[in-house]
């Protein structure tokens, strides 16, 4: 089962995703949390801390893996019993793109490579009992004047399109209210 969740910042995506994963619990389930964020300042560290604390306080043990790039490396360690939550696609995309500094803005081949790499690596996780992918809504900006922003939004938009096509359940989160755009919420 492949579930995709997107929405604005602070729309309750992450906490909903966590609750959703917990509900899928079966005998032998393992809860895996893949964090892609790299803290760059204190506020970010604090946010990550709050996410960690929330998972610590839940009644199950989460296996937390920090993997800012190359998520495909994890697929060998995952099994079909795993319930996997990856938070989030936007930071993963940023991390992959900026491996090459800002050169990617002028490098269509590299952008294409990153797009296919992320897609292929994400698909490795669909073997798990549940794969929940969290992303962020960033397509509503009119100001696409900056080349960097334009290409970033373009890549993310195309990834979202492909993901929604493949997903069993696609959720648009509006201020804490999940809307099933594809599939059914039980």
């Amino acid at each position, binding site marked *: 089962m492949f579930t995709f969740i997107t929405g604005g910042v602070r729309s309750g995506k992450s906490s909903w995703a966590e609750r959703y994963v917990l509900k899928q619990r079966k005998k032998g389930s393992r809860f895996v949390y893949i964090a892609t964020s790299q803290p760059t300042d204190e506020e970010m560290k604090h946010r990550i801390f709050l996410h960690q604390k929330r998972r610590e306080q839940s009644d199950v043990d989460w296996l937390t893996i920090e993997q800012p790039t190359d998520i495909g490396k994890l697929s060998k360690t995952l099994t079909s019993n795993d319930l996997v939550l990856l938070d989030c696609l936007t930071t993963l995309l940023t991390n992959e793109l900026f491996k090459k500094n800002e050169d990617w803005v002028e490098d269509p081949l590299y952008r294409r490579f990153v797009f296919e790499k992320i897609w292929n690596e994400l698909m490795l996780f669909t073997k798990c009992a549940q794969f929940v992918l969290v992303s962020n809504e960033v397509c509503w*900006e009119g*100001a*696409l004047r900056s080349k960097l922003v334009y290409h970033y939004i373009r890549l993310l*938009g195309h990834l979202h*399109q492909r993901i929604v096509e493949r997903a069993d359940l696609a959720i648009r989160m509006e201020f804490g209210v999940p809307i099933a755009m594809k599939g059914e919420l039980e």
Partner: protein
Amino acid sequence: MHVVVGGAFNGKRKWVKKFYALDDTASYQWFCGYDEQIHIADLFHTKQFEKITIIEGIEQYIFQIMNQFAEWRNYWDMMVEAWRGWEKEGKGTIVVIGNDITKGIVPVDQQERLWRDACGFCFQDLVKKADRFDIIWYGLNERLK
């Protein structure tokens, strides 16, 4: 008239092509606001319209109209009336695709700000006059009218 709106890179063009089965064999007219050179006058030449006529990137045409005409709203009304007149003659359907630029942070630049306002006004006007209205979200449509 069929209005199709959505965020950038949400698959609006792809959805329209599929919905109207616009393959190589279909006859249709496609105006694209993202072309290097766009001519607003093209949108008045209804004689050149085909049974399915698509106007993609309407926000770009709106930008041009605003910058070229002080009384741009009159120009806009005339244009939309020309489309409706053409449709009333039973000649075909006009599909207008717009990139929803109305939802970001308020732009600092005045021109950008006015453009955004104009898009809000024009999209609302189009939807009011449309027979069908869809919002596209990553390739999926949500029919609102």
